[in-house]
């Protein structure tokens, strides 16, 4: 009985987190398309509901009623598992995101490592989908994405080390609280820029959307997918983008903390601040999609390995030396 109570309480908490995340994923798809349209002087989706807000619901309905086609030569189990893996991994990472000092589903000691691990697992959905389709374009897309995501994860890991040197803890709430006096975006601004670009590459967003480049790979690993399975890939991708924005907000923009610690700002609930910061980063993502042309593959690899990795490694040495020399190392 006791376990049952705990179980239902946890399920309630999880639902209270996942349902808003799913709804906001649907909303940011709309926001993405709107921003993209405004940059190009178009209207974007504006028909369904007020300002076209219900466009994503209409799209979801369309996907539900479409037939799911499973290619006869595909590896059926893995083909069906792939979108589920993508979606699940994009959602489980939200467990450790702190919305305030107490509002967090799992306040674990190694929160940032958990986020990093889950985002590095995200590549499996794409590889599984691409391989199980048993077709040339999805396979090429999967191979591209595997190489791309592994490369950019390395620099994201090094950037996280930079932040951790300043914090002295792997707990996400500690990382937020360490930014009480100054957000890390100010002292670590170059790292923030590299993190943002690496996040674009990690989530396969333009200008790094080579795994699904429409012009050359016919949407890459998603080519053989249809109906709800395609929609799950799509939702998972956007949930991953939101997650990367949340990670950026927590690591560099002070997480749930209000920008200035004075009276009218402290009234706003801290969850609102986090959401605003995530939205800010997401609009930057959307703008980049609209204004930057796609990279060539060798340029992408060069940027990851020859520019970002050495630069962020040098920055680790600089940060560590600075903290050590001025005796600012966080010791607890």
């Amino acid at each position: 009985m006791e376990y049952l109570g705990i179980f239902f309480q946890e399920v309630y908490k999880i639902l209270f987190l996942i349902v808003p995340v799913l709804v906001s994923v649907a909303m940011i798809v709309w926001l993405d398309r709107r921003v993209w349209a405004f940059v190009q002087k178009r209207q974007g989706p504006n028909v369904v509901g007020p300002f076209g807000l219900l466009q994503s619901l209409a799209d979801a309905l369309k996907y539900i009623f479409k037939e799911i086609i499973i290619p006869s030569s595909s590896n059926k189990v893995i083909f069906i598992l792939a979108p589920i893996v993508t979606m699940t991994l994009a959602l489980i990472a939200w467990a450790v995101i702190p919305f305030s000092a107490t509002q967090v589903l799992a306040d674990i000691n190694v929160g940032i490592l958990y986020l990093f691990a889950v985002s590095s697992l995200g590549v499996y959905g794409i590889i599984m989908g691409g391989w199980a389709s048993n077709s040339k374009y999805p396979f090429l897309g999967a191979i591209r994405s595997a190489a791309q995501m592994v490369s950019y994860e390395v620099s994201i890991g090094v950037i996280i080390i930079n932040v951790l040197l300043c914090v002295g803890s792997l707990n996400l709430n500690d990382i937020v609280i360490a930014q009480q006096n100054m957000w890390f975006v100010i002292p670590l601004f170059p790292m923030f820029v590299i993190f943002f670009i690496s996040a674009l590459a990690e989530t396969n967003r333009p200008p790094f959307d080579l795994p699904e480049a429409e012009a050359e790979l016919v949407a890459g690993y998603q080519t053989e997918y249809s109906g709800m399975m395609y929609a799950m890939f799509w939702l998972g991708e956007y949930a991953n983008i939101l997650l990367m924005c949340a990670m950026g907000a927590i690591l560099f923009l002070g997480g749930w903390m209000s920008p200035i610690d004075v009276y009218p700002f402290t009234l706003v609930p801290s969850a609102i601040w986090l959401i605003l910061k995530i939205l800010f980063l997401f609009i930057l993502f959307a703008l980049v999609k609209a204004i930057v042309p796609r990279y060539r593959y060798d340029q992408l690899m060069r940027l990851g390995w020859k520019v970002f990795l050495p630069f962020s490694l040098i920055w680790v040495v600089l940060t560590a030396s600075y903290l050590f020399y001025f005796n600012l190392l966080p010791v607890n």
Partner: protein
Amino acid sequence: MIAHAIFFYTFSIIAVVSAIMVTASKNTVHSVFFLILDFISISCLFIMIGAEFLGMIMLIVYVGAVAVLFLFVVMMLNVAQQKNQWFAGQQSSKHIPVGLIISTLIFVEVIIVIGGWKYKPEIFDINNSIAQTSISNTHSLGQILYTDYIHVFQISGMILLVAMVGAIVLTFRERSGVKRQSYIKQISRERAEGVEVLEVESNKGVKLDD
């Protein structure tokens, strides 16, 4: 404790079954997927015994990087010849004795280590010193790794670096005649080297030397 036992047996059964499936499945890509499942359940077991740092590092390094590269190589092997069979046929059974001998050896080694740990705890005083402190797993690991074992740690890092450099040197070949983009060259190009204005007489043409 019941919940703990349920989780432990779930993860360990998944780990053992997937470890068997790594060797039993016919398709190499399936083997790698089972290997990944094995890694994930092992890291869950690590987290269950309180070694959350090790568990996460296992996920990041083995599942996030090493297994992706495994998959990368295996998928390239022979995509067309892969059969969608889940189990290996009879013909591979002649390797079973060798495998049995090796696995018995490993099993005996593990039994010796665990037995020593269980019945002669004073031999492994390092393990006890970790368990008694109240600081978190990550801290205690760092405190031991960067103080008592710093030289071993550095040497293992150097060995990995040498292995990496060696692998690159072995496979690297300078190919001639490959067109490569040089960013510095492109950026530092002046108008004078790219464009030339010529007076061309009619019916004579012009000869460019390139």
